[in-house]
């Protein structure tokens, strides 16, 4: 019985990834999808870069390391933004649009492995966007704005950089699971919830400015967010600095986030089953 269950869990995760990819990519022809996949993140990254350019020229400053901070923050923030938004919106899609939520729920593997799979699919999409944004963004800003990323390929701490991605993704999927759970028992938050969440992460996690610039004690909020530590590890490893301390914090915050997500999801599933919201469609 345990083998059967383990098999259905693994298959559910794989199917979540496969379905996520299909849902994300199958709505149009490959060329349009590729353009969308690349154009959207590049547009946001360049926007952040331009804000930096305008801001720094107004203040008379233009420092490559500050640009590096802002640029990498904006690029790697694609991971939490993509994953949390897609998982928060997933409930609405599966419950009302595709009418599959209850049928997934009553399978032996139920919801969690499927959600993880969908989160991993989003992470794969985000990875493509991150790589493309890093390459194109650095070329654009280097050639047109004389802003250079102080990254030396030979100094990058590749093990730390590579390890930070799955750890960060695990934390962001866990955060997405929490948003998914909230949407499972509510009906009108699918858009606003993910927007508020990514807004909070953007503000407190040191995406475009260090959290220490925020007034005390608000600045402490960033310390408990895995996004902060994820970005710290990424930046440190790209510069070849020691990333162990940030990595330890990332690991701890990821474990904490996974534990919270599991407890929260289990509790909310019981509430949803009691209230009968798993298959209830919005009344609008």
């Amino acid at each position, binding site marked *: 019985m345990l083998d*059967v269950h383990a098999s259905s869990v693994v298959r559910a995760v794989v199917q979540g990834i496969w379905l996520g990819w*299909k*849902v994300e990519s199958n709505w149009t022809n490959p060329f349009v999808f590729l353009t969308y996949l690349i154009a959207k993140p590049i547009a946001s990254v360049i926007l952040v870069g331009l804000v930096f350019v305008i801001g720094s020229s107004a203040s008379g400053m233009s420092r490559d390391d500050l640009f590096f901070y802002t640029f990498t923050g904006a690029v790697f923030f694609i991971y939490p933004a993509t994953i949390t938004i897609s998982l928060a919106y997933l409930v609405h899609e599966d419950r009302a649009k*595709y009418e599959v939520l209850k*049928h997934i729920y009553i399978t*032996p593997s139920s919801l969690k492995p499927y959600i993880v799979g969908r989160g991993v699919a989003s992470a794969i999409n985000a990875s493509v966007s991150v790589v493309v944004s890093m390459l194109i963004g650095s070329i654009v800003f280097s050639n047109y704005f004389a802003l250079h990323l102080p990254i030396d390929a030979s100094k990058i701490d590749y093990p730390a950089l590579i390890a930070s991605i799955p750890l960060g993704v695990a934390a962001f999927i866990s955060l997405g699971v929490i948003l998914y759970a909230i949407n499972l028992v509510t009906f009108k938050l699918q858009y606003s919830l993910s927007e508020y969440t990514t807004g909070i992460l953007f503000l407190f996690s040191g995406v475009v400015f260090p959290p220490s610039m925020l007034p005390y004690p608000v600045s402490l909020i960033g310390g408990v967010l895995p996004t902060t530590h994820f970005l710290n590890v990424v930046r440190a490893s790209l510069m070849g600095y020691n990333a162990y301390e940030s990595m330890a914090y990332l690991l701890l915050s990821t474990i904490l986030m996974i534990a919270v997500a599991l407890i929260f999801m289990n509790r909310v599933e019981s509430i949803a089953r009691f209230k*009968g919201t*798993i298959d209830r469609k919005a009344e609008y």
Partner: protein
Amino acid sequence: MYAVETINLSRVFELKGKSILALDDVNIRISKGEILGLLGANGAGKTTLVKILSTLLLPSKGSAYIHGYDVVRDAKHVRRIINLVSGGETPGYGMLTVRENLWFFSQLYGLASSLAKERIDMLIKDMELEQYRDVRMHKLSTGYKQRLNLARGFINDPRVLFLDEPTLGLDVMNARHMRKYIRDWVDEDSARTILLTTHYLAEAEEVCDKIAIIYKGRIVAYETPLALKASLSNGVSIQVEIFSNDLTSSSSMIVDKISRSSGVLACMLEGFDGDEDEKGKVVKSWSNTGNNNRHDYNSNGDERVTRLRIMLDDDSKIPDLVSMLVINGYKVLSVKRDQPTLEDVYMRYITSINE
């Protein structure tokens, strides 16, 4: 051990400060290899019961077991052996093909790849979906989407299948195909069991081994179709065809008048599918299996014909009934004595409860 067993199962919904009793001490036992038809009007509690049994909803009181597993405590075990098909829904991903949709669900049930492929091919053939195998779901007609929905329900070869109004919205041919398939499916393997909810009486009579009538959350009758009909042996069932030139006379007025007559146990319009209003009063409605020419017109086009099904306690009351209709301005076109049907049973039970 029963395939499905409920013990004093109750469910209360809180809605805007009001408590609504959706299920009230429901006790059913379905043996393996059996199809139980759960008959009831809209809002009677059919879907609530199915939701609890399929682990989508928690009961407020009582317990329910699927093959001995508690639906609350052992939900994981229950989910391995059940599946659910809801009529009127077309669950699935529009951008996936028929085959891909079935593959997705086969994997959620943990089916090995070779077994999944084999079963998908078989179901595609059984549901006559071969030519749509690689067609995206959003391009299918409603009938074929429903067939895909039904195929999904069989993907894990469940021991207990819940069919919640599976023929809702289907045309006659698709509904017939579906009914035949589910009957054959249970007959093939005595370990398979189906709980089918419907408000189509003819469907329940055709497919089910036993029938439970649910009314306002309570099981009010639970027998084989034959035994239920036999329970009416002390009554007489007749079909009456009348017409009236009075165009202001509604069908409900006729039914009301007849229902209040002496010796009339129950009265309904032919093709009644068992809907009730908020007060539990029988109201008229037409099933997809019935004749939908409720308000026929004769060759002149101005006379109104109504067909009624009436239960009398004694056939000596027929002349009195005809006289009453004539006195009230109706012309009696025909009176035909008939065998009791499930419609009569349903009508009798509901009427007696309301009395």
